[in-house]
């Protein structure tokens, strides 16, 4: 095979067995790799009713065909599993260099099955694969685990691991690689913890073969040129990182504030990318083969929050910032560092704290619940302490580690959890941006922005700009973004590459790399196939059309101040058209004709 290695690794932690299997060529062709391949494996091999934290759930680590090549920003891998947070066929996507190293070691996917009896880690050095004892590392932070594993294996080993949060089965636990890159969403870290798999360390020296090297090089150079020529990919993200969005979303009236009670903050500028660049940025940092370098190596010298690390991204700065009433960027960065150390999803962690703060101000949580802490909005010191408590599973942190839905539900106010399908929504208010609301409501893993980033045209005005307040045309827009991202995630390239290239360039590079003739239509169809297969899983789990919705606050409670004052989201005007254009019936179920068209 070209692009794909042709080998999949299967590790059964209950039996302690390791097998090599041939990667299914037809599955690779139709589902591309990474997210698509993982969704196909989980869908075929895991019973939807299985306990997500039990031995019957599986965990797939999968790079894509681009991963490890010199295609632009080709450093991604996906983790796919049944989510313990919400039961969806879920997964998360991370950059860095771990994914490429898996390819160099010779694997298209690593399937983890069963549960170990004691903590273990997986050591992969090309054909050498061993399940090793990790008892001494259980309880360690991500950085300490990474250091210890490099000492035990190889100083150049690439490490993906969980921190204490994953060990404690926190439903918002992430899997971290290279210490600071996160497969953050949907609680994948808890699945790893339930299997007592502390880490995977990998080093590889193999090569990825290319079907048509001349055509691939030409297609890659064309794509790289377009990304570098684009102001977003070429300059903007490198200079200011994703946190530059704080001011844009705020000035657009779509920056959620105080657990989404409002969508404009007069102090947002204090936590934006401009402030970060002026005060805490050490240097930009890129993943494997990246020509964008949106990552932020940062340093905080303020003694109260001092530290060195990476981040924050826009979403993290928002969640620990204005959504929690906080404008102290040093504290926000400290919270971000702690999430990376303990292995927590920054979006869900920050949003859960914001939810807890609203519940506290309403008197639904008191100091008896919060270990004596004052959870008023804006209390930066307490916000950081709550992250620590959640990370180690201490006191009130044990409630926070289950995410905002279960916390709010426990006091009778699930409506104050700003989630879709129990997963916290990212930092774009659907009352100010209609199409992103439809994307949240229909997203297969719950509240998610990256799998349908309509913000690019609704707010930033890229491509064919559309009115963020309009509902017309948003169903079709969402479907294009969702399907394109499904295919893109499966290819191993980064979402940010699309700030310069589109499906045609991606399909062209993929064809030259693999030798499979992907037209733009076939590439997009693969995306639709993956999306529909995820939908079928969710229906089997028990989700219905009633779950394709937004928190009632966004549908009925108008924004109070700022440019979007007075607006709510009009999901009801978009959802029926979305179902129709998807080829789904009125209950949101894919029709037999649609399934036949997609060979599902």
């Amino acid at each position, binding site marked *: 095979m070209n692009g794909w290695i042709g080998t999949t690794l299967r590790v059964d932690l209950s039996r302690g067995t390791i097998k090599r299997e041939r990667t299914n060529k037809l599955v690779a062709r139709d589902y591309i790799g990474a997210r698509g391949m993982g969704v196909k494996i989980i869908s075929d091999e895991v019973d939807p009713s299985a306990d997500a934290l039990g031995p019957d759930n599986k965990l797939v680590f999968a790079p894509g065909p681009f991963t490890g090549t010199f295609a632009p920003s080709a450093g991604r891998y996906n983790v796919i599993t049944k989510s313990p947070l919400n039961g969806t066929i879920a997964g998360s996507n991370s950059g860095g260099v771990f994914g490429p190293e898996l390819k160099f070691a010779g694997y298209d996917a690593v399937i983890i099955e069963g549960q170990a009896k004691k903590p273990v880690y997986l050591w992969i050095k090309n054909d050498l694969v061993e399940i090793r004892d990790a008892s001494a590392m259980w309880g360690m932070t991500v950085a300490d685990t990474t250091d210890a594993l490099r000492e035990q294996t190889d100083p150049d080993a690439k490490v993906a691991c969980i921190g204490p949060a994953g060990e404690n089965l926190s439903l918002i636990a992430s899997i971290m690689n290279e210490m600071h890159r996160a497969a953050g969403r949907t609680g994948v870290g808890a699945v790893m913890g339930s299997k007592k798999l502390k880490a995977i360390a990998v080093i590889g020296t193999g090569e990825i073969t290319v079907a048509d090297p001349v055509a691939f090089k030409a297609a890659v150079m064309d794509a790289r040129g377009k990304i570098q020529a684009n102001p977003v990919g070429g300059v*903007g993200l490198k*200079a200011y990182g*994703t946190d530059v969005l704080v001011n844009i979303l705020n000035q657009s009236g779509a920056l959620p504030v105080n657990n989404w009670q409002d969508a404009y903050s007069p102090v947002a500028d204090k936590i934006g*990318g401009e402030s970060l660049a002026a005060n805490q940025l050490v240097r930009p940092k890129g993943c494997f083969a990246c020509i964008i370098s949106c990552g932020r190596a940062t340093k905080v010298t303020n003694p109260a929050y001092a530290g060195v690390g990476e981040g924050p*991204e826009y979403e993290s700065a928002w969640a620990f910032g204005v959504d929690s009433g906080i404008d102290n960027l040093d504290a926000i960065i400290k919270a971000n560092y702690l999430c990376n150390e303990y292995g927590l999803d920054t979006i869900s962690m920050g949003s859960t704290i914001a939810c807890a703060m609203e519940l506290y101000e309403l008197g639904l949580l008191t100091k008896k619940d919060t270990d004596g802490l004052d959870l008023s909005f804006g209390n930066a010191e307490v916000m950081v302490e709550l992250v620590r408590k959640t990370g180690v599973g201490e006191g009130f942190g044990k409630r926070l580690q289950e995410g905002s839905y279960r916390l709010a539900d426990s006091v009778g106010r699930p409506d104050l959890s700003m989630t879709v399908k129990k997963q916290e929504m990212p930092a774009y208010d659907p009352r100010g941006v209609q199409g992103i609301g439809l994307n949240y409501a229909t997203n297969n893993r719950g509240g998610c922005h990256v799998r349908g980033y309509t913000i690019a045209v609704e707010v930033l*005005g890229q491509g064919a700009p559309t009115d963020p307040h309009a509902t017309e045309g948003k169903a079709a827009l969402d479907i294009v973004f969702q399907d394109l991202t499904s295919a893109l995630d499966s290819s191993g390239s980064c979402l940010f590459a699309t700030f310069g290239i589109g499906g045609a360039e991606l399909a062209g590079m993929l064809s030259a790399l693999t030798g499979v003739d992907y037209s733009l239509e076939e590439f997009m169809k693969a995306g639709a196939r993956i999306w529909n297969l995820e939908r079928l899983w969710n229906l089997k789990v028990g989700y219905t059309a009633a779950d394709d919705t937004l928190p009632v606050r966004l549908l009925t409670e108008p924004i109070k101040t700022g440019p979007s004052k007075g607006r709510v989201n009009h999901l009801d005007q978009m959802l029926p058209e979305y179902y129709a254009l998807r080829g789904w019936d009125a209950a949101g179920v894919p029709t037999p004709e649609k399934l036949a068209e997609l060979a599902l």
Partner: protein
Amino acid sequence: MLIKYFATFRELTKENSLVLNAEPANIAELLELLSDRYGTPFRKAVFEDGELSSLMILLVNGRNVRITGGLATPVNPTDEVSVFPMVAGG
């Protein structure tokens, strides 16, 4: 009229904001006025072959001018205008 600058436009103008005591009729006139004030680098950043530059995001009271008429978008003395370079994130 309040003009707010962000990211690279702060470097370009050496200002975070400006209260403009003039009454341009539309975005084109506003950008001409501002180009006169800040000089050639600013003009190059906001105009591209006589059109609104694709390298910037311009909001009038939170509305992206690309959907409200581009350079012909009318402006009023009480408006708030936000000027960004083209950036994105996620």
